[in-house]
């Protein structure tokens, strides 16, 4: 009773926890990038029809848009996917306390969005995540493709939204507990990111570039 376990946990999360998470995240990302790039690829001797590098860069951006007919075939994955990704970045980058984190870390800040808006985006993101989870369980293809990792990663992605929302709205445990859990959940996300499919957050750049490179040099659509 004479020390606050919630505050102790929060302090751990802000201190050693954050240190560990940062170290694992950065170690992992650099490791994975080196691991991938160092595998290299053979020089292509066939004369290109178009600039492969240009096509690679174009593909990095063009794949942000839905592809022909796909949105109609998989509406939940598309709508849910866009909402979640947009929501993730809006909440991460435009919630006042988060901005403060960047200000402290990188020395640059920017104006935030009002809390009610952030909360609305959080709820939308969570709904989107639930929707894509349901779509994963119900669609035979995604169900077949899914492994333990897919579900574990879903949980790890969902938790920061949930704990953040609960902390701000004083739901569940007392605020300090929720705050500590929120920070810890983000740290969990940071730790698993380099070693799960969440790596796509970084490697999609390479994947798209390679795809654009390989096919663009043939003059083919990418």
């Amino acid at each position, binding site marked *: *009773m*004479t*020390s*606050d376990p919630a*505050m*102790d946990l*929060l*302090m751990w999360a*802000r*201190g*050693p926890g*954050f*240190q560990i998470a*940062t*170290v*694992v*995240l*950065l*170690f*992992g*990302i*650099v*490791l*994975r*990038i*080196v*691991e991938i790039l*160092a*595998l290299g690829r053979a020089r292509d001797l066939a004369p290109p029809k178009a600039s492969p590098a240009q096509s690679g860069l174009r593909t990095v951006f063009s794949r942000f848009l839905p592809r022909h007919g796909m949105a109609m075939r998989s509406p939940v994955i598309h709508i849910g996917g866009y909402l979640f990704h947009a929501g993730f970045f809006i909440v991460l980058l435009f919630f*006042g*306390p988060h901005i*403060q*984190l960047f*200000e*402290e*870390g990188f020395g640059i*800040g920017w*104006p*935030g*969005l*009002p*809390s*009610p808006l952030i909360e609305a985006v959080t709820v939308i993101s969570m709904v989107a995540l639930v929707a894509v989870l349901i779509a994963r369980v119900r669609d035979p293809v995604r169900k077949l493709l899914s492994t333990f990792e897919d579900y574990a990663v879903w949980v790890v992605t969902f938790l920061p939204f949930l704990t953040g929302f609960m902390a701000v709205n*004083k739901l569940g445990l*007392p*605020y*300090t507990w929720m*705050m500590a859990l929120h*920070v810890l959940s983000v740290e969990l996300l940071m730790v698993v990111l380099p070693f799960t499919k969440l790596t796509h957050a970084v490697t999609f750049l390479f994947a798209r570039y390679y795809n654009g490179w390989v096919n663009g040099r043939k003059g083919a659509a990418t």
Partner: protein
Amino acid sequence: MSHGRAGAPELKDSLGATPDALADVLRRRGVSRRAFLNYCSLLGALMALPPALVPRLAHALEGARRPSVIWLSFQECTGCTESLTRSHAPSVEDLIFQSISLDYHHTLQAASGAAAEAAREHAMKENAGKYLVVVDGSIPLANPGYSTIAGISNKDMLLDTARGAAAILAVGTCASYGGLPKADPNPTGAVAVADLITGKPVINIPGCPPIPVVITGVVAHFLAFGLPGLDDLGRPLAFFGERIHDRCYRRPFYDRGLFAHGFDDDGARKGWCLYKVGCKGPVAFNACATVKWNAGVSFPIEAGHPCLGCSQPDFWDGGDFYQTLAIPTENVAGLAMGAMAVGAGAGAAVSALNTAKRKTAKKAHETVTIENLEKPKEKAET
């Protein structure tokens, strides 16, 4: 009516006098019934009592016998006593405090030395099982000699005094949670009251210092209704049930994302939220934002300073006072660079192994021809 030091709690002229009822004392002191009822209403509101209970509170308080109080001061700064006695012009809560039978208080009592200790022992014997012990300050365990009174270590005095007490009030963050003396690296091995007391109710009234009306309010509650409901940190829920953040008048600015980024910027002048200059309001449970200080004049946030969260355990070690709560406490830039360097190294090592493996695979490549496209016969037939 005197106030301040002159209005110090009435010390009993003679040892062993029977305490009067509270109402009598108040009347003698010239407190009108209207003022008393106003005070009861205020307390009731503060404690979130249903309005119907206020008359019961008044009645109970009026009839309550002046409790004998033994006030022990250990590793402390006397700020808590100051808060109570010098806060502002005399008020009912001041008088409530005055009306208790304060039988022992280092700072306030006239007696000294053996006489003082005798007063304490007498009060303990006289009111055995009924007196209240108020403690301010933490107790050093690293060495009993760090803090003694009349040759008695704090720990011994606390345990001795608490034995016959009805309840113990740990006033201030030092008594409640160890406070400043316990701050890292805690050179005296300071602990809180609750760390030493077992089998007796301990009510924590933290704050550095606590709000005066909260101290008297808890006493009033104790007198009227007995032990108040406590949160998981031993604090009366009636006063510590809500976060500063939730009752803060600057909260709308937080919700709109409008923050002061310094103490002299535009945001600060416009009175915007102090979250980004380190306000601990979101994790601090106290009544400052509602009761305020100095007879309701103001409170730190209103004065433009972020809440330090002084009513929380270990607030002194909670990172920079002027740093936002969720901000990492450690600078990770160096670690980050190191992690990336190690990652690159590990990546290079794995890649070297990978390259060797691929070279081996290339060397081991046997030309695929139409003769070896199929499995050996016995297998191919399966």
